[in-house]
């Protein structure tokens, strides 16, 4: 999967799960402060990333995913590996 496709898919998942505008989903946007997610929302998001990208995100890594950009780079790295 290309880098652009990953970013697009991540954006779509975030829009679906958090019900926010696509325009808000910028790389620097924080899930909690900018996109209104609470702790349960983030767990659900991470699970959806795991399902859609067929990967496993350990809890200690998931805790480091705070922004849209964090999520995209983590998934990109995992796909390169």
């Amino acid at each position, binding site marked *: 999967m290309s880098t652009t496709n990953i970013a697009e898919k991540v954006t779509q998942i975030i829009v*679906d*799960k*958090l*019900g926010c505008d696509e325009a808000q989903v910028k790389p620097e946007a924080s899930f909690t402060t900018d996109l209104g997610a609470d702790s*349960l929302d983030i*767990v*659900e998001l991470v*699970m959806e990333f795991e399902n859609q990208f067929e990967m496993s995100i350990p809890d200690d890594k998931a805790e480091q995913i705070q922004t849209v950009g964090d999520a995209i780079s983590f998934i990109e790295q995992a796909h390169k590996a």
Partner: protein
Amino acid sequence: MRRVVITGLGAVTPLGNDVGTFWNALLAGTSGANLITKFDTTLFKTKFACELKNFDPLTYIEKKEVSRLDPSAIYAIAAGTQAVEDSGILSSFNPDRVGVLWSSGIGGILTFQQEITNFATGNGTPRFNPFFIPKMIPDISAGHISMKYGFRGPNFAPVAACASSTIAIADAFMYIKYGRIDACVAGGSEAAITEGGIGGFNAMKALSERNDDYLTASRPFDATRDGFVMGEGGCGLILEELEHALKRGAKIYCEIVGAGLTADAHHLTAPHPEGLGAYNVMKNAIEEAGLSVNQIEYVNVHGTSTPLGDIAELKAIKQLFGDAAYNLNISSTKSQTGHLLGAAGAIEAIACIKSVQEDIIPPTINFTTPDENIDQKLNLTLNKVEKRIVNAALSNTFGFGGHNASAVFKKYTG
């Protein structure tokens, strides 16, 4: 003692998704039954139920919330919202003195079923959705309604199977009567038309299996009745202290004057054969109301269309009311709505309230064949509405476990 009146109603039901539509359909004698659309019933003994029709959750909640709420909570928010808006209470209330008592007999059974199925068909890794528990627990509807409006009074879910939401109403009445709160959203919702819900009640032989004539399957008091028909939906009431309601110029539907709660202490699912718990609960409710039995005109019975239950309840009515039983109008609106389990008390409370308000009795439909075990001199309001002055109406609900709850609604006459 403080008096309590009903100032708001809300309903999403198999007969319509607002109180007016529901009530008009009920008076018209409409069957709410349909072949189940929610899942494939090929292998199920019962293939029909009373589902909501054309209900759109997005009327009440945002799109992203739909997947985070069990249908039982969505129906609660819908009916609760209607009731709150109907009452106009938001114009004048102390948030610390408004409660929400909202029941469900089961809670989020669809959510439970989906999450356990996912787990059981996986590789054993416990990957549960983080919303699994808060979607499933039966008290969450009360929480959602409180969060929507900022109502910070007592907040919980009375759970007593099919008597649940009558208990919510009875408890709300008590809290207001004794001065703890000024007003309360009380009601119930249920969404158990799922594989687990239908299959589970089928296993108990509790459901009608009349698939070839499902529209008339819910036939309380009929000799050929063969079990209840599952319904779904949510219904809510606003109970409010009389002076509080008068002060803000609220519309008053009627007064709630009595409630009773008892147990059969007899059997897991079967009613006491002589209707002992039913007798006691009606007696308690009428006594608290300060009425004599001949001051009640209408009894909306639990009357689920099961062979044993209908007979036990009528026995109890005859025993308690004596000769006055023959002057009553008795009806089972479950013949039309199906059995909404934890929402049954609330939907039937609305039937009683509207009956008191409009002086008309909704009928027991689908009756064709008299049962020799039922006293045919009783007026069971068969097949068509009857107009009569209704000063007071009694609503009965009974639940598996032997829980009994009744409430008395009376005309408000100042």
